[in-house]
């Protein structure tokens, strides 16, 4: 799934806000902020797919757990998108009488939804 530049900007903004709040609460240091900024500046420009965004967020959350919530939310969004696509596909197959195929697609979703 591709994402827009505006969406990336929205995520960047969220990362900055989280970082500044954490700095104010002494949960992060200036050095942390510098590293976070470097990470985001280096990677965000190259992001075109939602998966790439998730990779960046995973990288951040590993080092600074304050970004875990953002990561979880983004994963859920991806899951919702996927779910929508599966439902469309199952319905399409069912309508055309391909019931077994429809069941297989639905199963594949339930097997992979533990993202």
């Amino acid at each position, binding site marked *: 799934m591709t994402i827009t530049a505006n969406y990336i900007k929205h995520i*960047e903004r969220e990362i*900055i806000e989280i970082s*500044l709040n954490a*700095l104010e609460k002494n949960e992060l240091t*200036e050095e942390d*902020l510098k590293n*976070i*900024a470097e990470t*985001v*500046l280096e990677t965000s420009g190259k992001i075109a797919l939602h998966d790439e965004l998730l990779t960046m967020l995973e990288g951040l959350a590993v080092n600074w757990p304050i970004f875990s919530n953002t990561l979880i939310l983004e994963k859920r969004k991806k899951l919702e998108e996927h779910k929508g696509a599966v439902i469309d596909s199952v319905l399409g197959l069912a309508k055309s009488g391909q019931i077994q195929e429809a069941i297989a697609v639905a199963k594949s979703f339930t097997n992979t939804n533990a993202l």
Partner: protein
Amino acid sequence: MTTEVKPNAEVTQRAILETKTPVTPAELLRKNLVIETRKKLDEGDVQGALVNMGLRHEADDKYTGNADTVISAQKTDKEGNREWTGDEKVRRDESINAIKLANGFVEKGWPVDAIEQNALIDAVKPALATLWPDAKAFFEDTAISPAVREARVKDFIEEQLKNPKVRELVQQLLEQRSGKKPPPGLEVPMELKAKAKEVEILSDQNSKAKTRVNSELTAVNGDLSREYGDPTAKPPVGGARWADLQALRANRGKNVGDKAAFTRDIASKDARLAQLLRSRDSSGSIVSKGSDGWSKTDTRGASFKVIQGEIDALTKDLDDPTDGLRAKLRGADSELAKLADYERDLAEWNAEKKRLEGERQTLIDQGNLLGANNTLLKGEIRDIVNARINWEKQYVADLQSTMTDGFRDHLTDQLRQAEVAQKKVLEEQIASTIDPAEKKLLEGMAGRWDQRKESGVFRKREVTVANKAQVDIDYALLMTPPPKGGPEIILRKMLEATGAPAMTTAEIDAKLADKAFVDKMQGDVITKLLERRLDTAKMPEADLKYIAESSWGEATIQAALQNKDALKKLEAQMRELGLSAGTMHEMFSKKGVKKGLLLGILLGIITFGVVPGIMVKEFIKGEAI
């Protein structure tokens, strides 16, 4: 009514006492980081915000010393953070910058960056100008463009600042000055601040109470004026009730009299009426009414009619709505009651007016008292704040002159070292010579053109500096062509000078006729005089040229060339410049050499230990002077 001017001093004082302590430089930087980054976000510049977030915002206390905490901010914001006024901020920034400049020099020495170099040069220039005006004169006294002249000054300063000793001196000064803290008496005591705040609150309340009283007084005056006018005005100005009041007051006596008379009449007539009614009723129990109202057949009808007639007349007298006694009594009563109302209102308003005027006066007195207290407290605080400001200004000035003072101390040390070395040589010479004339000249060289002076900032030293008055006299004499002037006259003056051993004119004449003696002494004496001249004033190119090309100039140059220490320094400098020492020696012996410049270089190196590199290069190239 009383004015509510209760001070909430306890709360105020607590609020002040709970004011937060000053934030540290690290906290300031952190706050700045957050503010600046958020500002970028608000502007929609997310990339800019990320870049700002990634910049290094390190609080390096050693670069700011304690300037952040030493410079006071007399105000705080609602959160208790210090709020610097313009002047306070300037002092803070200036002190931080001064510390940074000096600390940068202590840590890195002579910087690579041209801007930093210029900052250091600007910082130490004042030392050159004050301690060695001669040096300034020397550098300016050339036919070279200002740009090159500046380069020479820079060369000289750079050479000095590269000496690690300057760094040591600056470091000592910096540690001593940047660590200073204001004496305890320069803090405004919290109690004083709280008291001033309390007076301020009371003054505010007083002011509000005055406004309220004035407003109430205006309302009462309005009522009075509207209803009663201004009876004190001439002629009196009437209000709505004024004419009524005058009339009621005028009628009061009549009304009181009438009321009494009416009351009496009514009582009398009521009594009579009652009597008549009783008579009529007792005689009229058998009465029956006829067409005229009463039976004509009644034997008592005639007397009854008489009684009834009187009753009717009395009833009319008493109860006629217009002329009846009761109506008249009501009229008199009503006027008297109205008068009483008017008088009561007037009295109440006047009483209220008086009360409010009294209250106003009390508030004015209170206000004056508070004002006087306020002036006293503010004055006391201002004195402390001003003393603090003066201390801070001195703190900043000391920090700003750290580089200059370190440099000056270094130059003073150098002067002293050179002086000690020179003195030692001269003392040895004086001790070893047996010729009284030679001894006298050497002693003259050791003291004739010198005077003692205290110098140095951090390390006070008594140094020998040129005696400008004597140097000027002798230099003018030297530059005067013979027979009135010239080196021989200088030698004669020195031999004639008071002090042991005393010499007769004949002895002096004999000595000056001794060519070997003159050749031996003249070069050193004149070189010494020229050194001192260079210490005190400009030595223009024309003078150098005149000396170098005069019959005695060669001897002076040769004498200067004998100064091995100076030559050693010159050779070292030449090596630094990438010029071989051999080349310099060769140049000395070349024919047609620019002797003026050569003399300038030699004197400069003897006097200052270094000459501008560009001057040496020019000499080697043979392109200048």
